[in-house]
């Protein structure tokens, strides 16, 4: 039998349209079944045998979730480390540039300012940020 003609395309389209549509109109339109459609229906019925396959496939979803979470943590840490390096390089560049362009004293003033201001700013900010994460 030749399955190359336009007839088989119509049969395929009608078959999947009837599957998704539940109207009576579609049912009565298909009252004439020719040999092509008969063979097609037979073939599709035979293809359904793979639905009955009983294979035991063991998958531990909890283990997969744990692995996925650890991958996410590693990626986040890598990203944070790269951001830290970039930020540190930028700050260093700015400080060195200012020291060269303006005066070396700027470097010393900055050091003193950081040592005195940092404990009263960075630590509280870090504590608030951590509390925010927990919430």
């Amino acid at each position, binding site marked *: 039998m030749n399955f190359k003609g336009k007839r088989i395309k119509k049969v395929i389209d009608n078959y*999947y349209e009837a599957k998704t549509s539940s109207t009576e109109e579609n049912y009565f339109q298909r009252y004439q079944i020719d040999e092509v459609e008969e063979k097609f229906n037979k073939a*599709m019925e035979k293809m359904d045998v*793979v639905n009955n*396959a*009983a*294979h035991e496939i063991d*998958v531990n979803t909890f283990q997969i*979730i744990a692995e*996925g979470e650890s991958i996410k943590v590693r990626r986040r840490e890598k990203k944070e480390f790269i951001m830290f390096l970039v930020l540190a390089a930028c700050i260093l560049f700015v400080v060195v540039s200012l020291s060269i362009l303006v005066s070396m004293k700027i470097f010393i003033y900055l050091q003193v300012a950081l040592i005195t201001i940092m404990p009263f700013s960075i630590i509280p900010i870090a504590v608030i940020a951590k509390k925010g994460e927990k919430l």
Partner: protein
Amino acid sequence: MLVEKAKKGNKSALNTLLTQNYELLKGYALKMTGDPHLSQDIIQETMLKAVVHIERFKPRAKFSTWLITIATNVYRDTLRKNRNTVFIDETMEASVAGLEETALNNIKYKVVTEILMGLPYEKRSVFILKHYYGYSYEEIAEILKCPIGTVRSRLHNGIKQILSEMEKRRMLD
């Protein structure tokens, strides 16, 4: 709701989502690969990618559709890496109905799987998604990232190939 909880890091919600869609994913992987061992790898890889990229899931589509999309991409990447001939499993679980019926079903299953695996990957994926899962042409086009016309054409050509193969094997007499 479950998806929102999973996105916020709720492991129980994530586990429920994966468990609810496990049978669908398993059936799809088995039909695509014809090999239970490869299917297991595909399923695990798919679930892992879903866990890692859960924030990327947009609720406009079903979660099952998203998993199917990931599984399709994972299988396609596996094919590109390996290009091995696909192993068709010759063992099946014995059913309660009886040994003779099991043997007949095994043969039918093996033949149909051979015919299905004889289709090129693009036509096989369209046929499986349309025939076994009832996805619309638009949904399949989105999953496979191809135009709707291409989906229809692959479906028609895939089915014609199945029919020709069955005729050769005298399965339609």
